[in-house]
């Protein structure tokens, strides 16, 4: 019985790993192909099945005038916008989440849960609902086609995530902890940053990771709200979709765009392995 379970477990894990890795392997292989190797028949292994070329990768750093897309600047733009918006969202979201977790709010029929739901409900809206109003909003305040404008929009996208994760996290941090801090002479702000915050790092890491992911992978707003001054990575990469879909350079760009987040995955995993991702206070 035990053996069967172990066998099934490893089988399942292996199958799932294959499922996860397969498209990446395919992307790696495809990124070294050209029109010819993609369109005549299915090929897998470089040299054996097809003659590899670096063209798919080169396109990503070539200027558009040479048929490339030059993702270097957009890459850094994306990092900047994602990190800034995540940081602001985390700060504001964590404060709000703390308030919602610890204090009681009442206004008419509105209670804490309703406020939390209000935050989360921002994510219900399909991006298309917001795109036009945001466009007009940003153009009114003069932030269209700017990094700052994107940061403003991304805050709306990301703060709900931060609030959701952190409310959940704070709810699991015993409130006696902050009470003890208050009793020990901290005012609420000191209690928050001297005691609650240092003990919330695991929660902040998860929230931060989700913010970074959701910021990094957004395409729609970056697409609608920028013109020429500012370009983000996904928008730039999608501009490779000409009449011919260039499988090779899209594969290369898919790999390149996921790369920085793999670091995030390792950081998160490290906290998971230390066993204190959310259990620090148990």
């Amino acid at each position, binding site marked *: 019985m035990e053996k069967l379970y172990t066998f099934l477990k490893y089988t399942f894990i292996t199958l799932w790993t294959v499922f996860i890795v397969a498209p990446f392997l395919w992307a790696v292989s495809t990124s070294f192909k*050209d*029109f*010819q190797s*993609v*369109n*005549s*028949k299915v090929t897998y292994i470089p040299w054996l099945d097809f003659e590899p070329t670096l063209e798919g990768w080169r*396109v990503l750093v070539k*200027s*558009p*005038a*040479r*048929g*490339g*897309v030059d993702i270097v600047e957009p890459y850094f733009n994306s990092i900047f916008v994602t990190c800034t918006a995540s940081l602001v969202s985390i700060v504001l979201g964590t404060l709000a989440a703390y308030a919602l977790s610890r204090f009681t709010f009442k206004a008419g029929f509105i209670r804490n849960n309703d406020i939390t739901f209000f935050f989360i409900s921002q994510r219900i809206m399909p991006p298309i609902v917001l*795109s*036009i109003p945001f*466009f*007009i909003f940003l*153009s009114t305040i003069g932030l*269209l*086609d700017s990094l700052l404008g994107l940061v403003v929009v991304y805050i709306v996208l990301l703060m709900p995530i931060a609030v959701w994760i952190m409310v959940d996290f704070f709810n699991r941090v015993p409130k006696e902890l902050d009470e003890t801090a208050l009793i020990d002479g901290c005012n609420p702000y000191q209690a928050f940053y001297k005691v609650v915050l240092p003990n919330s790092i695991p929660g902040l890491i998860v929230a931060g990771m989700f913010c970074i992911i959701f910021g990094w992978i957004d395409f729609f707003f970056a*697409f*609608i709200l920028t*013109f*020429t*001054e500012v*370009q983000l990575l996904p928008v*730039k990469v*999608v*501009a*490779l*979709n*000409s*009449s*011919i*879909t260039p499988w090779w350079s899209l594969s290369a760009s898919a790999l390149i765009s996921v790369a920085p987040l793999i670091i995030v995955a390792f950081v998160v995993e490290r906290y998971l392995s230390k066993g204190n991702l959310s259990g620090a206070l148990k």
Partner: protein
Amino acid sequence: MKTIKTCVTALISALLVFSNVAYADKWSDQFPHIKATGDIPGECSYESMSKKDYSGKTLKINTHAVPVMGEPTALHAEQFAKLTGAKVDVTHTPAGDLYAKAMVPFQAGQAPYDIVFGFSNFINDWRRYLAPVPKKYTDMKQMKDVTPSHIGIASWDGVMYQFPVDGDRHYLKYRKDVIDNPEYQKKYKADTGKELKVPTTWKEYGEMAAYFNDWDWDGDGEKEYGSAEVMKKDDLMYAAFYSRSAAYSKNPKTPGGFFFDLETMTPLINNPGFVEALTDWVAATKYVPPGGINFGLGDEIGSFGGGQTLFSFSWDDAFVAAMQPDSPINNKVGAAQLPGSTKVWNRNTNSWDEGFNQAPFFVWGWAVGVAKKSKEQEMAFDYLCFFANEANHQADIGIGRFGVNPFRDADFQADVWTQIGWDKDIAQSYVDTLAEMEKSKNRVFPLRVPGTFEFNAALATAAAKALAGQLSPQAALDEAAKQWNDILNRVGKDNVRKAYSVGVAMEDNKL
């Protein structure tokens, strides 16, 4: 070494038949793109542009994704910047989003781009936001060479809003190595009792495609299929449907509208002509590659260009891609007019008129305009003029991935194509095909009315349902016609009629 190279280039250039004297000059040294011809004198030549000074100014352009149109836009932007000192910012956007990307700021009263690329059938929606092309440019020599149909496409009621930089049409591409193969001709005759030749009707097209479907007829170890077509319900598939419908529904005896009856504004798209075309098309799902029902233009180009299918019809791209030197079917393809039909619907008599009918579809192509709110209109038009100057144009049309296709009388010369390595008879069939389309008196122009997108999307949705087997062709087109009526009511019949009459006038050869 360099001098030898230059000499050779010059020699080759000299042999070309361009009316202008071609020679390597200081401009081609600086801009290798035009090394074949050197600068060709004109109002917007390299020479002329270098005399302008736009330093300190910025030109903003939204163009298509790289490389089709996107690469030449960026390339000429770079050249333009070098020549005039201007700063040129270029953004690249996938085809499906070009409309919205320009339309959102237009409607919000903004002009983030001085120059917007799009399709020629955007003209009715866009023209109120675009600056007309000034007389200075319409009178230019390079404009005189543009064919009348392309002037017509770029204009609205006689006013040119889009600067001609490209020409587009749908035509048939076929595998010459199969159709002209005597063995296959014999085999086909034996098996079907019919001749294997370039199909002249959609029925023949279908029979041949079905015959050459799902077996390895080029001996590469992979299966080949009958036809690659744009069947994916996106922004291009209804164009394929119109191409297939033109022969059945564009009756030279019944002027006054292809999509609507101009008098009553009744949608015509559910008449037996269109139903016949859709029935053909549903049958076509049997002879496309696996997944062919989900092919977009890119898939079509990849499939035909990769040697997977016998036929394909749509824009130039698939043909030019197939003729690239590294293509597996280089010089194995032929071009011909879209197939016709042996009957055409007559809506006046409510019956079929028997007899061969063929109607080329001047599907929209790349178009580009200058925003009315742009503060740099002069520079913007200079850029476009420079983009399409003769030296650039001649270099551009030879590069398949650029997507710049013939639209000037001078382009319809076989030599233009043989010099980039095409076989002579292929080049000849290509230019003949294109030139014949220009001459035809039974042409169909794309729908350019308020709500164009709604009309086309409604049709595409209905056609897609028929292709997927969700509805019968008649039911699908009835549904589309009903939606067209709804759209008409929303938009206002008179608005649509007014706009549509402009296109009908071109179809009826009145412009």
